[in-house]
């Protein structure tokens, strides 16, 4: 069961504020979402290894340098930039 405390903790980690009205609703929603995902466990309780369903391993790349992108390209979508840096509001 997902509790109010779980939601507040997750909200805190995601730096979101949650009002008391939203809290009830989000807790209910989250329980439904997790309940839905649990259907998979109910369907095949034996399966433990879903992570390698494609059977692939060791998809490696050789250590060879390829030129990086132009900085203008890299910064193109930045909301704010200065002197070649991404600029964000100070936090913490």
């Amino acid at each position, binding site marked *: 069961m997902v509790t109010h405390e779980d939601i507040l*903790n997750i909200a805190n*980690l*995601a*730096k979101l504020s949650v009002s008391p009205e939203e809290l009830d609703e989000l807790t209910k929603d989250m329980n439904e979402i997790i309940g839905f995902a649990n259907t998979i466990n109910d369907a095949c309780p034996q399966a433990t290894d879903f*992570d*390698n369903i*494609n059977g*692939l*391993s*060791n*998809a*490696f*790349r*050789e*250590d*060879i*340098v*390829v030129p*990086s*992108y132009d*900085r203008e390209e*890299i*910064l193109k979508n930045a909301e704010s930039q*200065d*002197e*070649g*840096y*991404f*600029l*964000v*509001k*100070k*936090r*913490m």
Partner: protein
Amino acid sequence: MTKYELVCGLETHIELATKTKIFCSCTTEFGGDPNTHCCPICIGLPGTLPKLNKRVVEYAILAGLATNCEISRISKIDRKNYVYPDLPKAYQISQYDMPLCKNGWVELSNGRKIRLTRIHIEEDAGKLVHQRGNTYVDYNRGGVPLIEIVSEPDIRSIDEAKEYLEKLQLIMRFIGVSDCKMQEGSMRCDVNISVRPVGSKEFGTRTEIKNMNSFAHMAKAMDYEINRQIDLLESGEKVVQETRRYNEEEDCTESMRGKEDAHDYRYFREPDLVTIQVSEEMISELKKKLPELPQQKAKRYMEELGLPEADALLLTQYRRISEYFEAAIKGVKNPKTVANCMIGQMFSRLEGDGAKENFAVKVTPENLNALVRLLDEGKIRMNLLKATLEKMLDTGKAPSELISESDMGGLDPDALRAACEQAIAANQNAVSDYLGGKEKALKAILGAVMKATRGRADAIEAEKLLVQLIKK
């Protein structure tokens, strides 16, 4: 008063010396204008896919082999979630419960083994510059490959912590997986510290000091933190589990934030990267690449070559130095002479760790070898060897270019005898002074012999012969 002991474990981050980043082909070169070593993968744009650099896996396994770790045959990669601008994706790609290496150890000079819990691979974060109320973000370092080496809480003193870190640095440099420069941030560590009454089996509450970037700061921060914790316990208060930082100006540690629990990082498998399977062949291939490690080398220099411990340690400080030494001693009678030349005359010309690491001297090991062989063959004496080495260090010339045939060949016994007889004949006053009990007078006669032979005579032999001849 209760006596306390330190319980300490280190998490050491080491940047791997690969050419490219861990999940994309951007360069890992240090420095560069901000955001010029970046691509859509390492700035975390949606729709991009990371692809693992094979050399990162190889280097991490080498690091594990060199520190007595078990290498996991199956390993996976996970996402560690936290929100901070140094991570453009809001998660760091790392390894959680299936690291590449585990259960290793590093041995200290006092014989204690510091156990290693694990070594895992992960990506470095970007660099933040806080100024004018804003944060400037440079992702050049973002995605540079790291290994994190986690030790068990086996360290019991500040000296042990320093030695452990020095050993790691030495080993990683030797096997060539990192340059481990603390001042450039390619090696940095977090120190976990708690104290407990001596004899107690339980651990106290620990704090973690983040991002130590020099040996000196680490020692100071540990000293402050140990005393802070003891003071708290002595006054009946509790140590709070938290993350702290070292404040260089005030020389103290200060609270950064409460320690987030591991599950707050909400680790889960990185769905974009497949399992790493390490085969026996891969491990045995890498084992072949593993050079003799500094500790073994130093031991061999002492046991097989008869070097004193201090010399052996100095010559195994950096891989280049030991390679130079090994090339220079080939076929020489006394390796100690080569060691003396290097540690004395050569080291004194190298300033700083960087110079020693590169061991960029003008003399090739072959030329040093040739010079020492001349001494072995009795063709030159120690004083001429030293003077010639100085000239070689200045000019980079071979000994054959600097020592003429007439300087070489030493002196055969007859020539030495003749020179001594002449010197005695020419210095009769000194001879009678010597016979009258003035020991020092002999030096004047010896000086005449050395002058006449232009330093080719062996001073000890000449002195013996002079005494014989005078007393006849």
